[in-house]
């Protein structure tokens, strides 16, 4: 893994919770799926670090934003640990999303003031 990607993921780690919650909005998924989904959706821009993913999943579980259940995968004849968004998780997603939006706008205003004016 090259250094650049590592750094990018590092910066975005704080928002990992939000990405996971957003991913789960489509329905329950297990860790591998979540990671893969985020990676694919960002065109591999965000290489999913397992060292960040699993702690994040367990953190969300502890806070009650996701619930877990071991379930049979439809396409594989095996059980996986599925994460499902809870109602509180949905609310949290809204909160984080709006915070992120504010943050992004604020950063944008600083970074590209001219674009903002025009």
């Amino acid at each position, binding site marked *: 893994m090259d250094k650049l990607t590592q750094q990018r993921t590092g910066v975005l780690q704080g928002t990992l919770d939000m990405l996971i919650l957003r991913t789960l909005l489509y329905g329950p998924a297990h*860790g*591998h799926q979540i990671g893969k989904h985020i990676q694919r959706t960002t065109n591999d821009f965000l290489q999913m670090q*397992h*060292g960040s993913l*699993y*702690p994040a*999943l*367990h953190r969300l579980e502890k806070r009650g934003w996701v619930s877990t259940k071991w379930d049979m995968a439809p396409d594989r004849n*095996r059980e*996986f640990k599925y994460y499902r968004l809870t109602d509180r998780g949905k609310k949290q997603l809204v909160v984080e999303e709006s915070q992120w939006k504010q943050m992004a706008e604020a950063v944008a205003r600083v970074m590209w003031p001219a674009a903002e004016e025009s």
Partner: protein
Amino acid sequence: MKWWQNRKRNADLERELRSDLELEEEEQRENGVSPEEARYAALRAFGNATLIKEQTREAWGWTRMERLLQDFRYALRQLGRSPGFAAGAILTLALGIGASTSIFSVADAVLIRPLPYLHPEQLVRVWEQMPNGHRPNMAESNFEDFLTQNDTFANLAAYNYGVASVSGGTEPTRVHISAVSPGFFTTLGVQPLRGRPFAADEERPHGTPAIIVSYGYWQRYLGSREDLSKFHLDLEGGSYPVVGVMPPGFDFPSGAAAWIPRELDPPTPSRTGHNWSVVGRVRDGVTVAQARANLSAIALRIRHQYGTQVDLSNAVVVPLADAIIGDVRTALLTLLGAVGLLLLVACANAAGLLMARIGVRRNELAIRAALGAGRGRLVQQFLAESFVLTFAAGILGILIAAGGLRLLPAILPMSLPRREEIIINPTVLLFALSVIVAITVALGLFAASRAGRRDLRGALSSGPRSHPGSSASQHLRSLLVVAEIASTMVILVGAGLLGRSFMRLIATSPGFQEESLITIEFSPPIPQGQAGLDQTAIARQAHLLDDVVARLRTIPGVSSVGLAGAVPVAAGDNLPEGDFLILNGRRPPASMDEFGQMRRNNSETGHALYAVAGEDYFRTLGIPLIRGRMFSHHDALGAVNVALISQALARQRWPDQDPIGQTIDFGNMDFNLEPLTIVGIVGDVRARGLDGPPSSVIYVDYRQRGMNLNSTPTILMRATAPEGEIVSAARGIFRDIAPDIPVKFSTFAAEMGGWLAQRRFLLLLVGLFAAAALILAAVGLYGVIAFFVTRRTQEIGIRMAIGAQRRDVLRLVLGEGARLAVLGVVIGIAASFAITRLLSSLLFGIGATDPLTFAGVAVLLSLIALAASYIPARRAMRVDPVTALRYE
């Protein structure tokens, strides 16, 4: 989930990761990668599974507990693997913790814990203040004025303190008795455990006699009987029913075995007879300062009213705790300081050991870091290890302290206030615990900061055999050793100063031959109490004493027997002192009042100690007659009363005249106004103690003046046979002549031992701490120099290969040791200069910066340092260049 569901959750995580990993692997295979490749690719994609698990567990939050347990297990394993290091560090720290805990328990009992009285902060001692700065006890009439005119005290109580013969219990004994004014016990806020306090008709002049005894006396002499009504104690000729027993631990004034109402003695209205100690309780809401101002105003009024008829010009009010602790504070603070330094040395030593360990464990740490142990994790690991170390050391230390406290009574001076209260209580344990926690955190963080700084890659690549430790850590260890040497220097200087003072003190001659002297306190009752003895009483007393002395003289092995009113030096404080009149041809005073008036003329008075003695006293002690003549049998009861004076008094009071033939009056000592004619001058004696100047003493003849309560009749025997034989023979004689009179045998050496006990105690402990610190510092220095040699083995090999002699190697290594030692000694000397000033009041005959002590200690410390460096230096000299160069 809770932390006890730990296992289940771990299994769950394990399963989750495995299933996801397998899935990854499957997907890789489905993409057409070979099974083996797929496996590695999956593992690569996943990264460090252990680290993921650890970090995930971290997200659960509760793992701190589990991790801690794991750390402790690991720490125990680590220490078990290097028992030498563990034992060294634990013993070092245990020594420091144990010593400081035991000294703290003494300080806690004596200095910190409040006095065992109700609201002790309200209690104060009160003295008169004389214009010359002296603080005498209170005169009776002045006390009455303070008592009735103040508006800041709940009560003021007067008490005195004296020795009396008490019989009526299981055996007659000589004990300390205190006569107390009304409200004495309520002032202190302590009620009798059994019986009752004094009743009103016992606390008035010519009232009903009554006595209250201490718990100890009740246990020992009254058999702890519940029913007190049967007990009547005979006290100096009177019979006193026992009405109460004070609770255990009530010890005021210190050592008192019984209390009687002071009204039983006839009142001695006087404004200059300083007979009463005073304790008071200020009212609620009144500060000590307000009380002091109040009594000062009354003192000024008294002074204004009576002018020079009173001695006082002010009143002194001191919190009772301060008054009791008095000069012990300096000694205890000295001990605390010494033991604190020892603790520092011990910690520095343990830190040095720890650093050496880190050097050895460099690889292990590097591997752990490479495997993903975060820095915080390493810090925690070190904290756990230092906790295991200090905890073990702490338990051992507390055991040492407990053992030390059992030994302490043997060396604690009897004069130490509150010595029975010294125990290991929660406060002391809390102290020990805080010390342990402080050391744990300090050592743990210290170790972690050292370990955390290491360059992992360097450590891993250089392998285990390269020099164990960077030059930075060598530097730090050197600093630690310098600090150790400097602290040791300070303790050693303190011990040296105390030791030299002590040697000077015991080398000081008391003014007579002190060897093989047996002392016997023999206390015939003195019927008239504080008032003077009449002629018949003097004759009867002299007859009894003569009889005893004559019989004692017949014991084989007794070369001479003398008699005096107190053991000089050892019990010199028992000698009364006061102003006497120089009559110069004037008529002697007819009454005590007239005596008081004549005393106001300073040009015709002097000040001296008052000692009752017989002529044999001087012969027995070997006090020489300088001029004039001794007491003789011509000096009978009716003849001219004679006196001997010490050279010091002659020098001081009659510098240009011949004192022999002068007539003086010392009637304030024995209420006998018959004048005294000075007939001789005798050699000087340091009667009040070895640390004082030769005393001004006036000796009077017991056959002419008798011994009243001011004196403790003491027989001194010069023995040429073993003491035991003489004492048992003497016991027989006393049983024969006076079976009811208490007798206390001792030797002058033993009495002196008691007098020296406080100094010896201090010296012994500070000396012990100094020795311990010295050993620790030597070990610390040895460690650093040995480390230095190991690190430089290669360099030494090269030097030798290119022609360096063993001498040069020795110089190199010893030079390193000497450098550290000199630095430590210099810093130590500077610190000592600042610190030993505080010891000044404990020293005798030398200054706080005594150059000989400083130089001696510096030399001693340097020699020890050289010796500690010499052992590794010898190893360095034996380095074989070939081996050393291959060493890498």
